[in-house]
């Protein structure tokens, strides 16, 4: 395929539409309707428990960080607070955006708004960009949420471990939107009648950051920014680490999530922070299944999926060398073997768009 153009208004976007890759029918593992209905059932219990735990932990860590400020003893508490703010909020943004975390709609909305603010994402814009990510997962020119483009720009990837690129982009766009403007790329996927919300959300966010910065200036201390804003940088590493694993090094321009998404077994703490999105193939195949039911879904369909990576480290061990090879060969990707119990990959569906798979 050669040189990729990730611009949503560029030639690859047009090509995806012309070749039927955009808004295509995707492969699904078979799950009997009754079982799927069970898995899709919503409940408030697990998310209320996790949300109380999350906000309580954030309050305690920030409180201790403030109490011990400016001693070095404050550092571990800020690091813990930062991960909950700059990483756990990413998964809360994601699940509540889908509307699957809680059964009660206002709870999803409330947590979604808070989490979007923490992640410096415009809650109105990102609802639409994420819908596109699900329609056209890792389709070049169509998916606005591709974390690692080809060839990978490692300096950007590494800078994002402390949120530098994402936060700068998010803030710049927030100010742009607050001035009453919607970017032409955003206008591609946000319906016209919804665009006013983008401006409204941006103005509220800019106002909150303005007050926080004002407080920091007034008190001649960065402490207010340690609580609001900076944790998006110093706590971003976990969500970047897990986020890269979602699709990194795998195929693009395919219509089977088994080829472009990765399920990774993770420790309990990371799964709490990440809200079970380590079951990423399962999430993309069946986005209506709430995070707390993903392990059960995984158990039901794992016979039809490539073997999951056994740990974060093993996932990186597979992904990182592939990203490095993509520096020289953009078409390179990893194609994982399927178990004999699985339905085979239908590469003929997207053969024209595929490059060379790793054997």
């Amino acid at each position, binding site marked *: 395929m050669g040189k990729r153009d990730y611009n949503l208004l560029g030639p690859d976007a047009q090509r995806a539409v012309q070749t039927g890759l955009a*808004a295509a029918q995707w492969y699904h593992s078979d799950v009997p309707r*009754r079982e*799927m*209905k069970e898995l*899709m*059932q*919503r409940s408030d219990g697990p998310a209320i428990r996790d949300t109380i735990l999350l906000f309580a932990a954030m309050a305690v860590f920030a409180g201790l960080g403030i109490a011990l400020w400016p001693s070095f003893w404050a550092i571990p508490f800020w690091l813990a607070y930062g991960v909950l703010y700059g990483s756990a909020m990413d998964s809360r943004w994601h699940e509540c955006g*889908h*509307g*699957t975390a809680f059964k009660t*709609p206002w709870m999803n909305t409330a947590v979604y708004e808070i989490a979007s603010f923490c992640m410096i994402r415009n809650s109105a814009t990102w*609802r*639409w960009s994420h*819908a596109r990510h*699900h*329609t056209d997962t890792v389709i070049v020119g169509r998916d606005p949420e591709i974390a690692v483009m080809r060839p990978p720009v490692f300096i950007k990837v590494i800078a994002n471990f402390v949120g530098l690129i994402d936060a700068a982009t998010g803030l710049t766009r927030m100010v742009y939107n607050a001035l009453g403007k919607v970017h032409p790329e955003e206008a591609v996927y946000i*319906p016209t*009648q*919804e665009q006013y919300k983008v401006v409204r959300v941006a103005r509220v966010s800019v106002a909150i950051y303005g007050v926080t910065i004002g407080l920091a200036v007034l008190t001649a201390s960065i402490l207010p920014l340690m609580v609001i804003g900076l944790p998006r940088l110093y706590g971003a590493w976990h969500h970047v680490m897990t986020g890269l694993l979602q699709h990194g090094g795998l195929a693009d321009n395919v219509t089977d999530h088994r080829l472009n998404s990765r399920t990774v077994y993770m420790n309990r703490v990371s799964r709490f922070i990440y809200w079970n999105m380590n079951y990423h193939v399962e999430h993309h195949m*069946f*986005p*209506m299944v709430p995070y707390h039911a993903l392990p059960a879904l995984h158990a039901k369909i794992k016979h039809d999926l490539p073997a999951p990576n056994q740990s974060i480290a093993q996932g990186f061990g597979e992904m990182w060398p592939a990203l490095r090879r993509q520096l020289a060969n953009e078409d390179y990707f990893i194609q994982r073997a399927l178990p004999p119990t699985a339905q085979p990959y239908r590469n003929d569906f997207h053969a024209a768009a595929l490059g060379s798979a790793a054997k």
Partner: protein
Amino acid sequence: MPNWINACAAGDIDAEDLIRFDHGIQTFAIYHAPEGDFYATAGHCTHENVHLCDGLVMGHLIECPKHNGQFDYRTGEAKRAPVCVNLRTFPVKVEDGRVFIDVDA
């Protein structure tokens, strides 16, 4: 003039669930509400070309399987983004344990 089409048996759809029904080039979703009534809408979501038959019925809402948009299937009203356009609805009657849809409504 209604054009009633015999779509399925009432017992074919679990309570608080839906099935797909195709007639000629048209496709529908038929719902069995929790209190026992039946409803019918156009089969495809108004956001993208995805059939609602794999979605989740919660009370009087149908949630689309692709992006979790929601409609009230009794009225077709779009209730949750990313759906913004209402869903078309069709009259339904139940006679002798069979569900009929007026497909020309």
